[in-house]
């Protein structure tokens, strides 16, 4: 085994000199950072900053143009099952609520006899038990996102990557989703999420990565970031100015 690989651990996440180009544009530009365990990380920035892209590269859905991503010395594909992703636009199968979770368990090879109890637990945590036989795609936006998080958490991942999990949700649905994120955090799941919502970042972040135009401008504790942002872009963003 590679000496750098730390068995039974998935953190820290180390991103070194990471760049990603597409269509002749540099969308992520030489990012360097290291995320430790035990905190909630919010990747903050305006639309087009590269937040979702960074999350996808960290998960391994996209390969970086240059640089590297490692989870306790492992590549994203080696860390595979320790990482679960929740997408901004929910992708629900054309099946019932319970069957959406059952599908994930089946794909991951969970024995059939274990699935039922895990589905029940996941739906209970998401507050969707009464909707288990409903078609998933007819749920409200908030319920769909809660189902997506429940489906991701049923795999018992060490890290939950959430891409703008509450965009387009009303305050009530946002509160329910944030409740699930806090519950996952309390269970020991490492939370790394993106948002462009400053208030949400204030509520959820222990540490902030501030991205702008594909560059990492700040990586600091949330209290420091919101009290004394170091860059002009972060100050303007926090004042609610539109960044180009």
């Amino acid at each position, binding site marked *: 085994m590679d000496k750098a690989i730390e068995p039974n651990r998935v953190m820290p996440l180390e991103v070194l000199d990471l760049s990603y180009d597409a269509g002749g544009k540099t969308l992520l530009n030489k990012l360097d950072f290291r995320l430790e365990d035990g905190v909630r990380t919010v990747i903050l920035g305006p639309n087009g900053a590269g937040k979702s892209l960074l999350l996808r590269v960290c*998960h391994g*859905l996209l390969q970086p143009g240059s640089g590297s991503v490692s989870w306790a010395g492992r590549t994203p594909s080696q860390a595979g099952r320790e990482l679960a992703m929740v997408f901004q636009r929910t*992708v*629900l*199968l*054309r099946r019932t609520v319970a069957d959406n979770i059952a599908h994930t368990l089946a794909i991951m090879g969970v024995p059939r006899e274990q699935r039922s109890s895990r589905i029940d637990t996941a739906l209970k945590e998401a507050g969707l038990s009464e909707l288990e036989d409903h078609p998933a795609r*007819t749920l409200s936006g908030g319920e769909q996102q809660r189902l997506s998080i429940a489906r991701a958490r049923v795999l018992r991942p060490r890290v939950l990557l959430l891409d703008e999990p509450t965009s387009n949700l009303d305050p009530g649905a946002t509160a329910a989703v944030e409740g699930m994120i806090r519950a996952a955090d309390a269970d020991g799941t490492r939370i790394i999420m993106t948002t462009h919502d400053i208030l949400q970042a204030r509520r959820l972040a222990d540490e902030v990565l501030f991205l702008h135009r594909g560059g990492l401008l700040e990586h600091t504790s949330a209290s420091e970031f919101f009290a004394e942002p170091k860059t002009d872009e972060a100050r303007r963003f926090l004042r609610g100015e539109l960044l180009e």
Partner: protein
Amino acid sequence: MSEVFSAVATAVELVVRLDPDLVEIVALSLKVSLSAVLIAALVGLPLGAAVALVKFPGRRGAVILLNAAMGLPPVVVGLVVYLLLSRAGPLGELGILFTPAAMVIAQSILITPIIAALTRQTISDLHEEYDEYLCSLGAGHLQRITTLLWDGRFRLLTGLLAGFGRASAEVGAVIIVGGNINHVTRVMTTTIALETSKGNLNLALALGIVLIILAASVNAAAVLIGDAASKRYG
């Protein structure tokens, strides 16, 4: 005009009292067309799924070819199958020209591209939507294909129904390779053509009524299945 009304009345009577000749022809038609749909499904479903999911050189050309093949002229297909199965043809030894088997082959060739093209489109659309999710789970090829086929099952069924509709209404190919032999290869469409040319409108109209009911039922089933699936699974 009264002759036409009389023919319609007689035709309706033939349908209502389940005239044995009529039933025999309808039964053979269903047998041939359903067999053709089964074969076309066995070839078309995996072929369409493969073209949708597997990247290979010339894939775009394959898609164009598949779509173009949906409009294959039935008489040309009939002619080609005739040449293949005729005594001097490469498959002449099988001795199945002018049998229902030859008609099944011709219809299968006609509707396989329809089923394959509709399958490709269905699987391709679903794949685009599900791709990132399935990737994030690390789903393998087989898991992806089964997920997509299962979630697309209602749209795929609609494709099969479209194939059945085309097969059961087809006349050009089956008359060439079947020969329209009484009690052997006579199906609804070929009988309608023959009886009309003979001036015997009663049986032709009766079969026409059955054919229209069948076509309407197939279309209604396709619409109802689509609506039910949309309501049930979104």
